[in-house]
């Protein structure tokens, strides 16, 4: 990851100067330690704002929606897959997008780091592929990056973007044997009652800030089903069935579309493990329809198509 920043700036600069793109979307240093922000560069002079390290956890595909300029976008494996899904749904025109693929070792989970240092305020952080150096009032800690990667990165099977125009860095071997379904499998092995109790416990923390929806590149509806007022399908309250329905329907909408970038879980201020739902959506697509989202531009959305021999063991 680190060390490729120069190469990123060089490639992005060439694209901008040659007029191949009018805009580069990447990451820049955030205003708080351990944070990055999306960065929009139109002037080659600003290219040194671009960074690339394990704090770059935002799924940039979100920022491709509704743009009519030609865009060069930096994309990790999950970002690139999100772009592919959006393109297959007609939301992004690939002729106007240049994907600068970034092989990725994983991004950090800020919440895990914050709980590790137990409430002390981090004033400065330097993150490399190997170590995280944290400094604050009267303390300095060095943590191994590997231990604090996001859960979705731990089970990532597409560290190199499956689709890209330019690859910056060397392709990485797909190391993870872990399919990431351990938690889903464990929940599935429980009784319906235990699962219900588990999800009530988890989802009752939701304050309906909709951060999960707002960071998700797949949530591009002009009006979300929970915001509709004519008709207002579901209540907008914190009552448990209303929140549960919001999360379940969101998971249903993500079936065959979620690429498990983990952005929703990382964005959640209430530490709700949203991946328990999105991983299930992914697993349904895999088990029922033998489908993995965002691998090929030729794919059709899994719920927008059918096969004559789709399983129907559940039909009386």
């Amino acid at each position, binding site marked *: 990851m680190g060390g490729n920043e120069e190469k990123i700036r060089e490639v992005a600069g060439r694209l901008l100067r040659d007029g191949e793109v009018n805009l580069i979307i990447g990451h820049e240093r955030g205003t708080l330690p351990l944070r990055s922000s999306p960065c929009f560069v139109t002037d080659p002079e600003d290219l040194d704002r671009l960074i690339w390290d394990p704090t770059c956890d935002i799924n940039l595909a979100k920022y491709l929606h509704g743009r009519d300029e030609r865009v060069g976008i930096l994309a990790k494996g999950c970002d690139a897959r999100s772009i592919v899904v959006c393109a297959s749904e007609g939301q992004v025109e690939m002729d106007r997008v240049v994907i600068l693929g970034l092989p990725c070792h994983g991004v950090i989970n800020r919440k895990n780091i914050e709980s590790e240092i137990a409430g002390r305020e981090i004033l400065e952080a330097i993150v490399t592929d190997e170590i995280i150096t944290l400094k604050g009032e009267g303390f300095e800690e060095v943590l191994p990056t590997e231990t604090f990667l996001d859960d979705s990165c731990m089970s990532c099977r597409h560290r190199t973007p499956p689709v890209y125009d330019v690859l910056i860095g060397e392709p990485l071997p797909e190391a993870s044997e872990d399919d990431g379904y351990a938690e889903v499998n464990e*929940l599935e092995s429980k009784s319906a*009652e235990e699962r219900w109790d*588990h999800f009530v416990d988890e989802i009752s923390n939701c304050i309906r800030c909709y951060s999960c929806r707002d960071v998700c590149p797949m949530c591009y509806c002009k009006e979300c089903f929970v915001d509709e007022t004519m008709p207002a399908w579901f209540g907008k309250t914190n009552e448990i*069935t209303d929140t549960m329905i919001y999360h379940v329907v969101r998971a249903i909408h993500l079936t065959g579309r979620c690429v498990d970038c983990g952005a929703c879980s990382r964005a959640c201020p209430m530490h709700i493990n949203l991946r328990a*739902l999105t991983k299930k959506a992914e697993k349904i697509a895999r088990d*029922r329809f033998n489908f993995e989202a965002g691998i090929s531009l030729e794919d059709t959305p899994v*719920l927008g198509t059918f096969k004559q021999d789709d399983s129907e063991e*559940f039909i*009386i």
Partner: protein
Amino acid sequence: MNAEVKGSGPEEETSSEGRWEPRIIAFLCNWCSYAGADLAGISRLQYPPNIRVVRVPCSSRVSPYFIIKSLQRGWDGVLVSGCHPGDCHYISGNLVARRRFAVLKDMLEYIGVEPGRVNFSWVSAAEGDKFSKVVREVVNRVRALGPAERLVKVG
């Protein structure tokens, strides 16, 4: 205007012996299952009176919202019934719906809604007998589960 769809929650139902009776909402495709229900009636076939029928133009008209909303409003069970694959009046509506229902059912059961609350069937216009059997089956399943509690909004 912000009118939440209240729909009609089901009325409390009890049998003549005062026993709890399941209340089931059935979305029936106009072209097959609804006619199948008609045939069951014309043929004087018996089935439990626990279902309330909503006629829809096709099983694919049934959005997951209908089903989830029904559960939230307190229906004890849901039945969606459409044409057999290959017989859809709109060629492929039921095939698209089949995928959607599979995902919905998997997801609802994953969060802990009991298997048997939400049911799907294919019943053709010629299958009055099958319709009565399906209703009996669904009523038995829901009766065994008891009154719905999960996902039911109180108040």
